[in-house]
């Protein structure tokens, strides 16, 4: 599997970019010990115009490079944590629905459908506004709007796995149903979940940046969406302020997508079809 993944050029490019982003995020406090908010120079300095400020300064004279580095922390953190939370909601729900079927399934799927009916970005906006923007509320809101596809995927996978004969064999072995679900069924749904999770991190990063762009970001955490949102009014005079964070988002999301596709090809060549729900 790893062999197949390694030969996928796109995936390896993705891994490379992602590792670089992670490295930058981790090293941000070392390179820029004063944080992303420090006003270091005149505002609106274009890139490369002053030594030490390769990407220029923003509206308050803050170092864009430092902002990007700290923004990577927020993007990755929110992307990762919200995906984990979404998985924590979606996997059990989908698993139980798919495994027990009948009214459990009916109920769980109605519930899921219900969440899919509310336009998810609108719901995220309202949730963040209600809980007040902070990293925690943003993460939670993203998780709340992104679990339904997980639940559907896991349900579909569980339903297909539970029909397989080894599940019958486990029943005949006298295993209890929860145990069958945990030891026999769920382990066989892991690959598509991993693939989906990698794509969800990407989507979560996009969502976080969209929220920040609308001014619903955590005001105490520098993020890429915030940078674009803050720079949109000066986009004509200072293109670099919205350009660089935009590129950062595109690269990171692209990297995650490439990795997701690579994983998909390596783990389960037919996920694209099953995973569509």
């Amino acid at each position, binding site marked *: 599997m790893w062999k197949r993944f390694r030969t996928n050029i796109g995936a390896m490019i993705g891994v490379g970019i992602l590792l670089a982003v992670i490295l930058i995020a981790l090293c941000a406090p070392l390179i820029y010990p004063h944080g992303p908010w420090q006003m270091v120079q005149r505002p609106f300095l274009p890139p490369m115009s002053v030594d030490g400020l390769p990407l220029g300064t923003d509206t308050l004279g803050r170092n864009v490079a430092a902002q990007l580095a700290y923004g990577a922390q927020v993007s990755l953190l929110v992307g990762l944590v919200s995906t984990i939370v979404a998985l924590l909601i979606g996997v059990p729900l989908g698993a139980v629905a798919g495994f027990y079927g009948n009214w459990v399934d009916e109920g769980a799927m109605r519930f899921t459908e*219900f969440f*899919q*009916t509310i336009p998810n970005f*609108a719901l995220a906006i309202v949730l963040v506004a209600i809980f007040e923007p902070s990293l925690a509320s943003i993460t939670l809101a993203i998780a709340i709007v992104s679990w339904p596809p997980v639940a559907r995927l896991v349900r579909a996978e569980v339903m297909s796995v539970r029909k397989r004969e080894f599940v019958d064999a486990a029943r005949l072995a006298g295993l209890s149903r929860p145990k069958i679900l945990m030891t026999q069924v769920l382990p066989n749904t892991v690959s598509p979940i991993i693939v989906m999770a990698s794509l969800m991190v990407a989507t979560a990063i996009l969502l976080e940046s969209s929220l920040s*762009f609308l001014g619903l970001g955590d005001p105490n955490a520098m993020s890429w969406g915030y940078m674009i949102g803050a720079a949109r009014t000066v986009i004509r005079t200072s*293109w670099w302020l919205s350009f660089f964070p935009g590129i950062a988002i*595109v690269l990171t999301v*692209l990297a995650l997508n490439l990795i997701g596709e690579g994983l998909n090809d390596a783990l389960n060549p037919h996920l*694209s079809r099953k995973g569509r729900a």
Partner: protein
Amino acid sequence: MSILTAILWRLAKAALTLLAIAVLNFFLLHAAPGDPAVVLAGEAGAADEKMIEQLRERFGLDQPFYVQLGKYVGGIVQLDLGYSFRQDAPVSQLILDRLPATLLLTLTAFGISLVCGIALGVAAAARVGKLSDSALTTLALLFYATPLYWLALMAVLVFSVWLGWLPGFGYETVGAGLTGLDRVLDILAHLILPALTLGLFFMAVYMRMTRASMLEVSQLDFVKTAKAKGLSGPAIRRRHILRNAILPVVTLAGLQAGQLVGGAVLTETVFAWPGIGRLMFESLAARDYNTILGVFLVSAAMVILFNIVTDIVYRIVDPRIGATA
């Protein structure tokens, strides 16, 4: 089960879903900090106790929570979305005023993304492994990874500000007094940028899906049958692969309708498009509960509508559904 009964059944279910959404959101919104009376008073530039009391009374906020909920749900059942005190107009009026713009935007974006996505997906699948396929898939991946709003900003910058080809915002040229075809063309010109930016992301999604689906269907047995009949490659793609490959794309499109409507909030904000997404965003800051709830309901109804439409398309394309369901 005929299409008609299926639709009726869906509508009945949809009504229940909508009611549930109303109740849930009612709870959610009323849990939010911020008192609409205080906001409204605050905006007036001055406020005293008396004014806030008056406003609360007018809004019905002085009543117990369950009474407010009861009244609201009672209204919903009669298709009354309530009254916006912030805007001083019935919510249904506010939404109806703005709905055409949103429908125009989302439907155009949906149409563009679906048609172009499928067309490009088919094109890429037909050239699988070739350079043009790689170029198309890479482009799709890029669109897929680009934040919608950023794309929108860049589009305004390039096409509106630098090149001056297209209007960068708004729904039509205000007060130009255009009528008939001129007005339609004017609206179309305004529509291009927002619909494209909103559609590009979904176009990428549908294209990738179509491509994958085409490739997968082309492995199926009946394609071999078609080849064995002596059909040409293009004929096989058109008559056999495409129709089968589109089904999952249609399903996906239906499921993504929610995202499309959600994405409209961003697009409408950047392009000053006078739709319900923007209405919601603005109402949120003002805690104009009834309007937010109304927008939620209407947009959820739109999602359901998209779902029903894709369902119908599915039923038309796939004869198996109606018979075995």
